[in-house]
């Protein structure tokens, strides 16, 4: 067979085959099966079908993150059922409420590694493409089938290539790049595809920014996303993995690098797009869809009521750092509430250690427990009907945050922080220049 895409190589590996063709349907054995608060519903059905034992409990990863701490007895009972299931099945990779959002936690724990496959009952499982793993979302029934048999069918997707050149300019982030891509190509621009990034620009992006890209590509309709892993990725993962296994970091690092997969240079792709990072500017997704994107300058000045920094897309340390940089020694506008929810306990501790939380608290922010928070409208900061939200999250569908009558704008954490400061949608570059950044 000719040159292969990343998706072909990763699916072939998970299928135990030497190669697979684009369009072929194959049975795969993923390395990881992810579920979160939805585990209780899957477990109930598992038992109802008369199934007793999960086939390979060591391949399951379960987090509590979608409604933590639980806002109602019903949610609490849901968590209690999950804990029972975890104990009964001897699942070791279980992460309690407060540890963080599944995609962030599994990355920090270096459970998933480059070249592996993870299927999760969560649409943002594309996240793991940041490290060059194959991550795709599936439904609950499929997770149940995976628990029972370890296998599931996948269609080998066609690929899109997005080539990144240059370096992001001052005040512009990976979030702005993604929003620009959605504006240019639409929310279904990557439908069913493996979107495989390439180009020298990737090397200039921090690990956290790469996470933003792979995670947010879920909103582009893709099956999976892929960024080619480099030394920065191996160095980020190796000590974390070594912590778990007790092996020397260097040996772990070599093993991780050896398992990485790269598409062949002339791998087939349906289309190739090119983005010059230097030419990008801050972007905002307007209500009520993620591809209703405008350059920030066109919507600057719109009054906001709630500013939210968090979620698996943009709740990491660099996101909180830029917010702290913008808000240091200042107060948010009196018409705004600012919610900050670190994506994980690791992010929370580091933000605490570096003094960011103190800056944010002095600026008037609320800091909440790591988890999804109000991202999907469960709790912890639902907007009132008629309010305007600026969020660093990934979805602004009508009703997403709990009321159909709120307007949600999506932007980078820098934009959210600057907008909280002024009470209106604000270009962060103006404020950053004032703080002498």
């Amino acid at each position, binding site marked *: 067979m000719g040159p292969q895409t990343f998706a072909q190589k990763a699916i072939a590996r998970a299928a135990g085959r030497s190669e697979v063709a684009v369009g072929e*349907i194959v049975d795969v054995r993923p390395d990881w099966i992810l579920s979160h608060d939805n585990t209780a519903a899957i477990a109930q059905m598992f038992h109802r079908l008369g199934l007793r034992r999960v086939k390979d409990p060591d391949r399951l990863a379960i987090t509590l993150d*979608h409604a933590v701490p639980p806002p109602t007895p019903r*949610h609490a009972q849901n968590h209690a059922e999950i804990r029972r299931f975890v104990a009964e099945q001897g699942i070791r990779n279980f992460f309690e409420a407060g540890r963080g959002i599944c995609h962030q936690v599994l990355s920090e724990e270096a459970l998933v590694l480059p070249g592996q496959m993870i299927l999760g009952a969560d*649409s943002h499982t594309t996240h793991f493409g940041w490290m060059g793993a194959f991550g795709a979302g599936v439904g609950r029934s499929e997770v149940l089938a995976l628990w029972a*048999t370890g296998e599931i069918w996948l*269609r080998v997707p066609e690929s899109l290539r997005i080539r990144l050149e240059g370096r992001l300019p001052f005040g512009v982030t990976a979030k702005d790049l993604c929003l620009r891509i959605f504006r240019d190509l639409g929310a279904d621009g990557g439908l069913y595809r493996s979107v495989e990034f390439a180009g020298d620009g990737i090397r200039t992006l921090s690990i956290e920014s790469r996470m933003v890209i792979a995670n947010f590509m879920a909103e582009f309709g893709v099956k999976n996303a892929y960024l080619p892993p480099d030394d920065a990725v191996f160095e980020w993962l190796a000590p974390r993995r070594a912590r778990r296994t007790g092996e020397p970091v260097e040996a772990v690092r070599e093993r991780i690098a050896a398992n990485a997969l790269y598409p062949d240079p002339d791998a087939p792709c349906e289309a190739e797009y090119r983005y010059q990072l230097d030419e990008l500017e801050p972007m905002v997704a307007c209500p009520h869809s993620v591809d209703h994107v405008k350059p920030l300058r066109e919507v600057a000045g719109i009054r906001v009521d709630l500013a939210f920094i968090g979620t698996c897309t943009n709740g990491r340390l660099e996101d909180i750092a830029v917010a702290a940089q913008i808000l240091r020694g200042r107060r948010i506008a009196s018409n705004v509430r600012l919610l900050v929810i670190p994506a994980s306990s690791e992010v929370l501790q580091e933000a605490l250690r570096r003094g960011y939380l103190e800056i944010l608290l002095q600026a008037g922010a609320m800091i909440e427990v790591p988890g999804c928070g109000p991202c999907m*409208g469960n709790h912890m900061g639902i907007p009132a009907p008629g309010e305007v939200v600026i969020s660093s999250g990934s979805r602004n569908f009508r009703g*997403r945050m709990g009321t159909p009558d709120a307007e949600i704008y999506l932007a980078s954490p820098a934009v959210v922080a600057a907008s909280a400061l002024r009470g209106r949608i604000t270009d962060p570059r103006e404020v950053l220049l004032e703080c002498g950044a």
Partner: protein
Amino acid sequence: MRLRGRVWKYGDHINTDVIFPGKYTYTITDPAEMARHALEDLDPAFAREVRPGDIIVAGRNWGCGSSREQAVIALKAAGVRAIIARSFARIYFRNAINNGLLPIVCPEAVDAIEPGEEIEIDLETCTIHCRAGAFPFPPLSPTVRSILEAGGLLPMLCRRLGLPIPPEAFFPTGEAKD
């Protein structure tokens, strides 16, 4: 097999947050109750007036957003038998098949079909018959067909593992076999 039903027509990018709101995902688990909230933020008339056998016709990227399977089950429980769209979000497409709700990709039919009209889907000939004419659609792959024919992924799993298939109530999905 032929499916006959009345059409509800919607636009592009109808997402799972409006098909079944996220705020209910851990609190509403009974399919009949889920059906009462189906599409409530988009079209409150739907849950009130939907009848068993109805068919949804939609534009691009139906079911984008969350992976929540409730967005299929709520419609299935409301009586919807098939969705014809220009394209489907990929997890929704899989969830639909796995729950025995027929997803059909046919942009030409989407253009031609009017809201409220009665249409017929012939699964043998892969043709949609509506007032404006007959529109062929591409056949589903054998893997997908076998799941639909089993009534969904879980009934198929039970068969494969030699387990009795539990009562219908557990499968808001299970009646796709006529």
